[in-house]
């Protein structure tokens, strides 16, 4: 439980911080596609004898960059590109499951998340990855926000817009892939999007949105984990339901 709580705190802090950019840029669907490609990466890793988490991160980054490149170099609408990659990644993942009969239990752990099985070694790797992502977010927050508010205004000031777009995608890919063990592929996007969306509903400034998003994420991770322990329910689903409850409360407050 100690390891689970530590992992929950780490991801409860980082996913919602990055989630603010996801919500501002309307990239929720992008996060889903990345999560599904991470699943394919895990299956590929098991098939090729590579450590699954590393394969997931590597494959998720490749897919993120692929989607970003196509968005920048074609006239195909973004949601169509994401839809194609999303379903393509899911199809390849399902295909690979068929070739990996003996590993099905492991794969289902990744699909639905199993934070209680997180080892200290897993935790160390996740901590390094998320610390790196956290530092990058702190260092790049200004140009990332400039690009989110107006790409042209940012470019006139010399912000490398394309590089910032790719950087955000890579940060998302690493975060999603590193968080899969906690809430699973199906629900990982919720941890990115829902705390940030709840914070947006009740904030009066961007600074407050960042602070509340992280606070909400932390609160939901810890409350969800404790709840799942007490109620003997799936940890990932309980964390996400805690986020949804908070979002509903924020909605009620925002409507007043």
């Amino acid at each position, binding site marked *: 439980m100690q390891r689970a709580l530590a992992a929950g705190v780490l991801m409860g802090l980082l996913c919602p911080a990055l989630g603010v950019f996801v919500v501002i840029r309307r990239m929720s669907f992008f996060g889903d596609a990345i999560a599904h490609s991470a699943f394919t990466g895990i299956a590929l890793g098991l098939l090729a004898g590579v450590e699954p988490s590393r394969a997931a991160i590597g494959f998720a980054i490749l897919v993120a960059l692929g989607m970003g490149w196509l968005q920048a170099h074609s006239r195909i609408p973004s949601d169509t590109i994401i839809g194609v990659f999303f379903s393509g990644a899911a199809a390849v993942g399902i295909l690979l499951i068929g070739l990996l009969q003996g590993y099905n239990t492991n794969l289902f752990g990744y699909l639905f998340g199993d934070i209680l099985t997180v080892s200290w070694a897993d935790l160390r790797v996740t901590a390094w990855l998320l610390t790196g992502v956290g530092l990058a977010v702190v260092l790049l927050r200004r140009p990332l926000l400039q690009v989110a*508010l107006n790409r*042209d205004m940012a*470019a006139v000031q010399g912000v490398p817009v394309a590089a910032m777009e790719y950087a955000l995608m890579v940060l998302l890919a690493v975060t999603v892939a590193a968080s899969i063990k906690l809430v699973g592929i199906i629900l990982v996007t919720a941890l990115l999007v829902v705390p940030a969306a709840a914070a947006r509903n009740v904030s009066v*400034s*961007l*600074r407050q949105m960042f602070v509340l998003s992280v606070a909400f994420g932390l609160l939901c991770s810890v409350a969800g984990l404790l709840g799942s322990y007490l109620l003997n329910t799936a940890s990932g689903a309980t964390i996400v339901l805690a986020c949804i409850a908070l979002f509903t409360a924020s909605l009620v407050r925002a409507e007043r």
Partner: protein
Amino acid sequence: MAVLETENLTVVLGDTVILEGITLAVEEGEVVALIGPNGAGKTTLLKAVLGLAPLRTGTVRLFGRPLASLGPERDRLGYVPQRLEVDRSLPVTVAELMAINTPRRYWSRDRALRVLAEVDAERLFGRRAGHLSGGELQRVLIALNLLRDPRILFLDEPATGIDREGEKRFYEVLESLRASRRMTVIMVSHDLSVVYRHASRVLCINRRLLCQGPPAAILNDETLERLYGHAAAVYEHH
């Protein structure tokens, strides 16, 4: 002294030629209006000059140098887009909008309040950007650029979506800024009465540079008919 020069500038997007062979020069202190029908390439010309649209051929020089080698002088380019890309429900304040879009070396709360006062928007400092009227937001976007003391201010249809009163106030502020700061202003505009009142020179764009000159010489039935066709050759002089 020319602050902007283009030579034989051509922009092609996909298979479509958007701009062809545009050669022009803008002198310091001028207020230049780009006019032309929808899809004529006015915004693309603005973007090509600022390095936001790829050139097929031609060169652009700002302050006598290519954009890529401007160095710190790049800070002296101001740009006001038609609109922000985020929706109005985003909780970003005017102060945050200005701070995010201003390099740290130019930013201070006092400076921000001073430039907001110049555009008659000091009281908006703590307000949410999404709660401002179109005219107020455009004035804030100008103020944000003023923090870097621009030598050229590029405006892309700045009055789009603004009510008549807001538009009038916007152009009054722009006129006063131009006079006090000796800025060069280059703007895309659909409103010919605004162009007539505020521009010192008009460039008629319809893929090519069709004509240029002072508003009084350009804004006549013959030129406008050539540029827009019959239906659009209606404008008002005030």
